[in-house]
């Protein structure tokens, strides 16, 4: 057992903390309050963070990135999220897909996309899976061949023609390169008939539709993708035809693309929100007065604070253990469990914070309100029934083996 961080890990953590406090926190509430979904994004903060390495943190060193380990990535995500969860996610979404590129793309594909990604501070990545009629079906695919994503790709010589649409796609409105899951064989179930394509933003026949107006994670852009005879070269197939689901999922997460990072990402980000809530709640409880005494003088407030810190520290232990296990290449279901757990914790912690604040008549503190709204996002990403059953099924498969 060794809980010490290496100098490099500590360095990234401190760098992230400084950037978060000096650059992210000052714009957080202001970006959150912008009513139009399309306008909450701020390229300046992305560029500033990119220059410090927060966009390309997970790209291997040989490809010009920083090649950080998972522990570092978890530390950085939590630090950035402590100042703004959505901005942290806007950076780490790139790590998720840079993992995928470096793990599953061919050298030729890496050569075509990675240097361009590394060089351009405004180069953002995304991945399109969900469709209006296929959300849970993609995550827990039934054997029924009609279930799951419908975006169709048909081969015409050296090109594939894509038709259909994606919905709720993170970074869609701002991304330059996307991984797109498409159905290449509709006569077999999703698992066998889905292929992943690299689709650059300027692909003919591909455009972005509406930007979804979320109640939480306001900064983070989420949009529709529309494919109308979009033409993608055969050379842009990731892995093999029919291999999309195999590449990103895998039992217990045996690749570093997709699930294994994504699960860690959500729980590390939640940890940042919890840290913010704990720190602010403590400061508030010690300074705000009621009946002439600091709130902290009250037994009930002490219990609320105790619970917030207890849950947050438990989450930290879980997050860092999962990150360490990833670095040690110990692959278990813990990442999924930590993600599910983070959903419960982030909501309970922010709700306790809101309780300590109270509305005091009819005024709710905007920072508190934001943390609670951001935490609700976990219900639909990390802690819903499907995500929990998925992990349970992985556990069952591991138990049988």
């Amino acid at each position, binding site marked *: 057992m060794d809980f010490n961080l290496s100098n490099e890990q500590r360095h990234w953590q401190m760098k992230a903390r400084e950037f978060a406090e000096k650059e992210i926190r000052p714009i957080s509430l202001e970006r959150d309050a912008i009513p139009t979904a399309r306008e909450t994004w701020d390229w300046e903060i992305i560029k500033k963070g990119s220059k410090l390495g927060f966009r390309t943190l997970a790209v291997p060193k040989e490809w010009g990135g920083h090649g950080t380990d998972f522990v570092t990535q978890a530390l950085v995500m939590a630090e950035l999220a402590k100042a703004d969860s959505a901005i942290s996610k806007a950076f780490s979404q790139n790590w998720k897909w840079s993992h995928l590129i470096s793990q599953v793309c061919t050298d030729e594909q890496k050569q075509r996309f990675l240097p361009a990604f590394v060089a351009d501070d405004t180069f953002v990545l995304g991945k399109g899976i969900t469709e209006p009629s296929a959300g849970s079906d993609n995550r827990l695919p039934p054997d029924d061949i009609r279930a799951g994503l419908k975006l169709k790709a048909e081969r015409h010589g050296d090109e594939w023609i894509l038709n259909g649409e994606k919905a709720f796609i993170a970074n869609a409105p701002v991304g330059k390169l996307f991984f797109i899951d498409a159905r290449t064989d509709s006569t077999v179930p999703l698992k066998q008939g889905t292929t992943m394509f690299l689709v650059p933003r300027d692909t003919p026949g591909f455009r972005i539709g509406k930007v979804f107006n979320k109640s939480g994670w306001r900064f983070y852009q989420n949009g529709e993708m529309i494919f109308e005879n979009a033409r993608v070269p055969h050379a842009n197939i990731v892995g093999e035809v029919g291999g999309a689901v195999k590449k990103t999922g895998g039992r217990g997460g045996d690749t570093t693309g997709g699930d294994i990072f994504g699960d860690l990402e959500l729980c590390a980000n939640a940890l940042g929100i919890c840290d913010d809530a704990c720190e602010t709640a403590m400061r508030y409880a010690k300074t705000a007065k009621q009946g002439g005494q600091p709130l902290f003088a009250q037994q009930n407030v002490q219990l609320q604070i105790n619970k917030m810190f207890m849950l947050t520290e438990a989450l930290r232990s879980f997050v860092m253990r999962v990150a360490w296990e990833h670095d040690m290449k110990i692959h278990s279901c813990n990442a999924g469990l930590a993600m599910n757990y983070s959903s419960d914790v982030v909501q309970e912690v922010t709700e306790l914070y809101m309780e300590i604040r109270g509305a005091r008549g*009819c005024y709710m503190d905007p920072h508190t309100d934001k943390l609670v709204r951001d935490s609700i996002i976990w219900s639909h990403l990390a802690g819903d029934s499907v995500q929990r059953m998925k992990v349970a099924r992985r556990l069952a498969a591991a138990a049988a083996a």
Partner: protein
Amino acid sequence: MYNLHLSAEQLEIRDTVRDFVTREVKPAALKAERLDVGDRGLLMEQIDAASQLGLRSLALSEQRGGAGADALTSCIVTEELAAGDADSAAVLTETSRLAHLLFDRAMSDAQRERFLPKFLADDRYQLAFASREPGSDTRLGVNYHRPAANEPALQSVAVKASNGDWIVNGVKDCVANAPIAALFAVLVAVPGRGESALLVPANTPGVTVKDHEKAWQHGACGEVGFKDCRVPADNLLGDDAVAILTGADTPGRGVPLAQALNLGIGRAAYEAALDYAHLRVQGGRPLIEHQTIANKLAEIAVRLEVARASVWQAAWASDHPEAIADRSLPDLPLTTIAQVFTSEMMLKAAKDAAEVFGAMGVMRDMPLQKYVHDARVCLHWDDGNSDAKLRIAEALAGYRRAPEAMALAGE
């Protein structure tokens, strides 16, 4: 005798309001542009139509031109309205409640003669009670089970002019209905008399109303300023008006209207989730055929039914105070009890309902995020649930406060 039957009138009015809400309120309330919690205007057309149905004057006695609805009936109507639109429900409920308190109980005959005809004649004549003051600390909190160290003194003051008129100065905030009210009852300090309630028409020179943006409250809400406002001597309400208006005469046992509104929010979320669970097919079956969704919907239904039972019990107790005297009901602050349970359960219900919708559950042009927000408002508005629990505990402990302290504590 234990009887949970609603009367024929209660059933009829519930059906009428439900039908009105389905036909006229919901279509307007569910328009995408009105679902953004940061920016939603009042549905004035629907509120006017509701007034024409008699819902603005629901609790006002029949002899004075209202429907004479008792507490239980008022709660049933508020839930129905809130299931369509929490804001319209809040506006109408506040006016109806105050119409009863003011015209039936607090006003003198002379005052009623001056104000009641205007109230009855105008669908937009809304009422507001301006009591809370900016920065005032009305929480029980640290003063649980002990006398408050410093009683907060009212800053708003009414003094007598040489001709007998009252001159009012002060500021009130978080005043429900303030931006649309035609008549305010204002809690003021009167030198030599103490806490008093004064009638101030909204068009009195010197009255200013500032809309609270993003207020943590339903309906319209605002700050009201009074600067050298002059009202006639006869506008001072009688000695018992303060206790009537603040609810200090029935601490913890007022009509659970806010809780009925909260129920309506939970029900709207539940109905939306139930409908969607029938329509949406994933995993080869409609969502409702999946155990996990079925379990969620069942839990929501349990919370709604048990919360409604607590609200109705509190409402019925408010209509039948003798039921506490004869030991049919426990001598407890039943409305505060309903508040704590209902607000916690409805937030859980709304969150679960939103989860059924997946990503659509957090989109601002969809209703579920609004229901979650609205339910959260019920949990934290005013002094919140932590404080409500302390008030229940004081009752359990048999701790009695002086009536004035209770009034100030916002009972």
